[in-house]
């Protein structure tokens, strides 16, 4: 492995080690940067008895000062970018950012005068959760990947059926 690759691997290991610190106790702060609130509905269902994220050690908190993970939805409206930055800055390190929903990942809205199109333009995102809206199970998987309790599957998926053309 090249020296640059070694550094990258070391950085990735460090990030992974940091994430694992949160393994069983994670405080999540949700942030809506201009979404249609469907993602928010699904996020809310995480606290309901059927999915119950508290059994995994995850909790919602309204205060960024108490938060470990910022769960961002919406296409990052330009009018909101400063507030999003302030929220991120108000979180004490180590901290994680998870972007969820097709809007936040760059789909649906192109970057224009009103929105950046993707959360990644403003905040450093650690985990991306696709979906429109992502089901609570998808959100749970994403959060568990963020804290290193599950390995991500999607890089191995090919989204093809039936083999070679």
């Amino acid at each position, binding site marked *: 492995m090249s020296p640059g690759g070694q550094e990258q691997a070391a950085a990735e290991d460090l990030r992974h080690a940091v994430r694992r610190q949160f393994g069983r106790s994670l405080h999540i702060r949700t942030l809506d940067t201009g979404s249609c609130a469907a993602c928010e509905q699904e996020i809310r269902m995480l606290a309901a*008895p*059927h*999915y*119950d994220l508290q*059994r995994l050690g995850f909790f919602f908190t309204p205060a960024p000062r108490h938060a470990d993970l910022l769960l961002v939805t919406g296409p990052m409206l330009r009018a909101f970018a400063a507030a999003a930055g302030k929220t991120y800055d108000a979180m004490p390190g180590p901290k994680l950012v998870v972007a969820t929903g*097709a809007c936040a*990942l*760059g*789909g*649906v809205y*192109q970057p224009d005068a009103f929105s950046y199109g993707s959360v*990644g333009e403003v905040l450093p*995102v*650690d*985990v*991306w*959760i*696709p*979906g*429109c809206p*992502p*089901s609570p*199970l*998808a959100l*749970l*998987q*994403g959060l*568990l*990947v*963020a804290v290193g*309790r*599950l390995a*991500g*599957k*999607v*890089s191995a*998926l*090919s*989204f*093809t*059926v*039936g*083999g*070679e*053309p």
Partner: protein
Amino acid sequence: MPQWFIRGLRRGVVTTRYPARPDPSASTLPGPPAFRPRALTRAVADTLARVCPSRAIARDRGTLVFDAGACTACGRCRDAEPSAVIWSREFELAATDRPSLVKRIQLRGEESQ
């Protein structure tokens, strides 16, 4: 109050056991499409790219570029080309880096690029 209690006892525990055990409702969830590469001609690929409202599908010369992150699971690609697109039934789609959500699928009859 007593009725609620009795109903709760009868129903039992409803909390999902995910991730320890798979959740039975997972199969009913909408999710991104899966493509049949054998049915993907250039024309089909262009149709799919045109109907996708979220710019998740694009054709780059001989490759279908599918951005699973941008997909909203609206189903228009399946309605337009039912022979080329089926539901993938995948919901565990979280990725730690954004490029791993962009899949390149070789079209039929094209050389691999």
